[in-house]
């Protein structure tokens, strides 16, 4: 199987889906002529033309609302935000309209659209360009929230998202774009709502998604050297969440550490933890540990930013805390 970057995997999915369905189009700032600020849409303008790969003015609310209107008519927009931080301007269109149209119209109008953006902490991008907002979208009934961590999942989940009749918030990560992995060339979709067991283990479950899922795998390698076998669950989708995967992993290991790169309060991590308690309380031999960033904005200065970020050491310490509890 070819080894390609996460970025290239996304690009392939966009290429193939635009080819497959003439009602799919891409819209966003710098997606066309500039080739995309993260180069995910590179080459698409040349292939599909300006009608289907549309450069917008700086009007997040305007073009997102336009996309929701177009989706009401059955077109399939893919909106790109340069960073999820800029989605805040468009939240009315996403939350009050895209998420609610099907419900409020009694099923007459849906919002078959995808909103893609890099989400979470970059490198010294400072507070306004570094937010992880997945919990905001997880909170809203009517939105699906997908966060692939590997190139194969990026391709398969983006295909699934584009074909999904409902609005999908597709959260990428700046630090993942250049990571590599094996990706098949078949027209394969990865189903939304299914977690992946990245590594089997019996002593503790590391539950995560996106960049942190990859960090959990590295922490698991380190732990293995001490004879601690960590199971790594990559949720891949937050909404709808794979509750069976959560229940099953805790039933196997009896200890859980939830790892995300968010602010802690009302985070996706806290929601995952709540669900674990609901699904598998009797299976737990220790309280669920959460590893997230602290309750602060992201600072610019490199050492402070490093201090903010969850790292392998914190994951390992969390694992030790769960193991320190007697069974």
């Amino acid at each position, binding site marked *: 199987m070819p080894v390609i970057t996460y970025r290239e995997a996304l690009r392939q999915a966009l290429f193939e889906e635009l080819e497959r369905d003439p009602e799919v189009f891409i819209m966003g700032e710098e997606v066309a002529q500039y080739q995309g600020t993260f180069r995910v849409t590179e080459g698409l303008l040349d292939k599909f033309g300006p009608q289907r790969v549309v450069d917008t003015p700086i009007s997040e609310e305007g073009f997102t*609302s336009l996309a929701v209107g177009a989706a*009401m008519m059955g077109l399939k927009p893919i909106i790109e935000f340069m960073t999820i931080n800029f989605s805040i301007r468009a939240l009315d269109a996403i939350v009050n309209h895209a998420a609610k149209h099907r419900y409020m*119209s009694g099923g007459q109008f849906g919002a078959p659209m995808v909103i893609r953006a890099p989400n979470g902490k970059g490198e010294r991008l400072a507070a306004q360009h570094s937010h992880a907002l997945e919990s905001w979208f997880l909170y809203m009934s009517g939105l699906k929230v997908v966060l692939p961590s590997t190139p194969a999942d990026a391709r398969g989940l983006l295909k699934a998202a584009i074909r999904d009749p409902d609005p999908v918030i597709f959260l990428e990560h700046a630090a993942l774009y250049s990571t590599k992995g094996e990706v098949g060339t078949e027209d394969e979709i990865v189903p939304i709502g299914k977690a992946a067991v990245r590594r089997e283990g019996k002593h503790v479950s590391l539950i995560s998604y996106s960049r942190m899922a990859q960090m959990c795998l590295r922490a698991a390698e380190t732990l293995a050297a001490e004879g601690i076998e960590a199971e790594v669950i990559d949720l891949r989708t937050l909404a709808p969440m794979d509750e069976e995967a959560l229940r099953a992993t805790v039933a196997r290991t009896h200890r859980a550490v939830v790892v995300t790169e968010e602010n802690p309060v009302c985070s996706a991590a806290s929601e995952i933890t709540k669900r674990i308690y609901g699904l598998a309380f009797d299976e737990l031999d220790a309280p669920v540990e959460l590893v997230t960033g602290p309750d602060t904005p992201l600072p610019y200065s490199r050492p402070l930013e490093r201090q903010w970020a969850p790292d392998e050491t914190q994951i390992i310490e969390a694992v030790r805390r769960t193991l320190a509890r007697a069974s």
Partner: protein
Amino acid sequence: MDKNEVLRIYREMLVIRLFEDRAGVAYMQDKIGGYLHLYIGQEAVACGLISALQPDDPVIASYRDHGHYLACGADINEGMAELYGKATGCSKGKGGSMHLFSKEHRFYGGSGIVGAGIGLGTGLAFALKYRQQKGVCLSFFGDGACQTGIFHESMNLASLWNLPIIFVIENNGYAMGTSVDRSSSEPEFYKRAAAYRMHGERVDGMDLFKVRETADRLIPEVRETCRPVLLEVMTYRYRGHGAADPGNYRTKQEVEEWRQRDPIGMVESWLLKNKVIKEADVKSIHAEVQAEVEECLRFAEESPFPAPEALYEDIFA
């Protein structure tokens, strides 16, 4: 407009007027709850403009959407049932007054968010152009919506991208209790079109003939050229912003002055003067309209509320 068309629209305006009036009564009886924004006084705007459209041209409005819903030809029974929150409502009881929708009659809804239809309507026009359909979108909103950011962004996008949309400002002088003069640095809204190199014009919305004449001129041009237009329609609502609005921000005299130019009265006079109908016909038409509205009230009363399972339905496809 030919005489039969005037007669048809006259009847349509009467239906809307009586529907709204009875909805107001039902609201006082708590059969309708939440918010109720009545269209009484503004009937010529929706009827005059929508009647000039082709069958596939999309229409989108604000929360004051009952008139537009009915002028699109959507089902009156389902409309009242929706206000009553019944399962037989156009939105299955899940939307209510501000969220009437009819896919069948290409009515893309009301919205509870001021200005929402401006942005969404721009997307409807975008879709028409994308599919190379020669259509025109009518997006109706109020004077208050002209101050939103989405107004500005949508004007720019529509003009920049040549989208076939007519942005219809139903200027009734007040955004809830705030007059145009208290909220607008440029209160002559149609002039704002110049900032986007768009055509803007103003028309008297109490005069059905003027509204329809404007529509007959602008709609084919937008269809052909795909150049968007900002159309400011001067109108007035006789009732408050919503059902619970005491209306302390305007004088009884002002309301009376606008009532003197009642749009339905004007059309009725025209029909009588041009001998399309006789006085006796006025009575019989009123009786028919009354019967139609009574029937939709009966339908709404007798329809069931949604089943408990409906709470969880239509979140996803």
